[in-house]
């Protein structure tokens, strides 16, 4: 018997995101299509966010005498939100690995941590909006604020939707166990979750850091 090389060649990726590999091979074909389809949808979502960012930039001068970015934004709160989202991306990655190696208990634990971080992010974001409202920064105040409130809360809405989906998946897992639809769901939610973190990079760089500089 010939000895196997220690470093295995990388298996060919079948779809974006973490590939579950040989242990889950019997259901891989349908998953491949569904995950790729979800990735196509994600890219169309990227176009929406990109265009809302372009709209935001064209509206930077349109404050109409109302409060601007320097009066409304708070760097510390933005840093907290950024960290929460980044850590939640990493914990979702750990959940994906637990799924791949069929460690159900750790999978549920990491998913719950991810969910808690998502809720914490939403809490800080809503608190920020509340402070902005108190300072007179309401969407109807100026074109600039309308552009802000069509871009940033849309991302928040995505995070809220992803959290609801995560709760639904946990419920599905409790009822049906770790079957093929649940696995495919977790893989797609993982793509959404990591994607929302990428969109947040654009938001904190352009809107918050750009606005406060």
């Amino acid at each position, binding site marked *: 018997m010939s000895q196997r090389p220690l470093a295995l060649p990388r298996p060919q990726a*079948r779809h974006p995101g973490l590939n579950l590999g040989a242990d889950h091979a019997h259901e891989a074909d349908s998953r491949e299509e569904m995950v790729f389809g979800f990735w196509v949808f994600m890219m169309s979502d*990227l*176009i929406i966010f990109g265009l809302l960012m372009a709209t935001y930039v064209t509206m930077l001068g349109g404050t109409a005498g109302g409060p601007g970015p320097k009066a409304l934004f708070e760097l510390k709160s933005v840093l907290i939100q950024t960290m929460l989202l*980044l850590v939640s991306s990493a914990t979702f990655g750990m959940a994906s690995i637990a799924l791949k190696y069929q460690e159900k208990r750790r999978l549920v634990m990491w998913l719950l941590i991810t969910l808690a971080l998502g809720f914490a992010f939403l809490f800080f974001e809503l608190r920020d909006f509340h402070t902005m409202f108190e300072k007179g920064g309401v969407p109807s105040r100026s074109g600039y604020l309308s552009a802000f409130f069509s871009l940033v809360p849309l991302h928040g809405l995505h995070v809220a939707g992803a959290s609801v989906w995560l709760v639904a998946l946990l419920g599905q897992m409790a009822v049906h166990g770790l079957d093929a639809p649940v696995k495919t769901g977790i893989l797609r939610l993982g793509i959404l979750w990591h*994607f929302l973190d990428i969109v947040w990079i654009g938001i904190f760089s352009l809107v918050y850091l750009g606005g406060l500089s």
Partner: protein
Amino acid sequence: MSASGVEQDSAAQRAQKKAREQRSYLWGFGLALVLTLIPFAMLAFTAVERMTLWLTIGACALIQVVVHLRFFLHITLDRSKREDLLLILFTVLILIILCGGTLWILFDLYQRMLPDMMP
């Protein structure tokens, strides 16, 4: 690796693979953390020129996007069954045309007709 790719690995190989994958996520997290903290720290603690600051923020954001794609979404230059990378590159092309066009046209308009709208 057999041709069908369904061959089961030994326990040692599984553990090795798992450790490698966890390390990959942690590398991604560490790099993303550094690339986030650089622009935040520059804005909060230094008084660099505005243009330098903007360029740093933009560069860090772009590199961080690539880090996320590579370490969290596993988009690599390796051979893939589906054209994930081409899909991203095509979407980025569309985005550059749409966003670049929007900014070009509207700021040209502002300059000629609405100078108050220039930020």
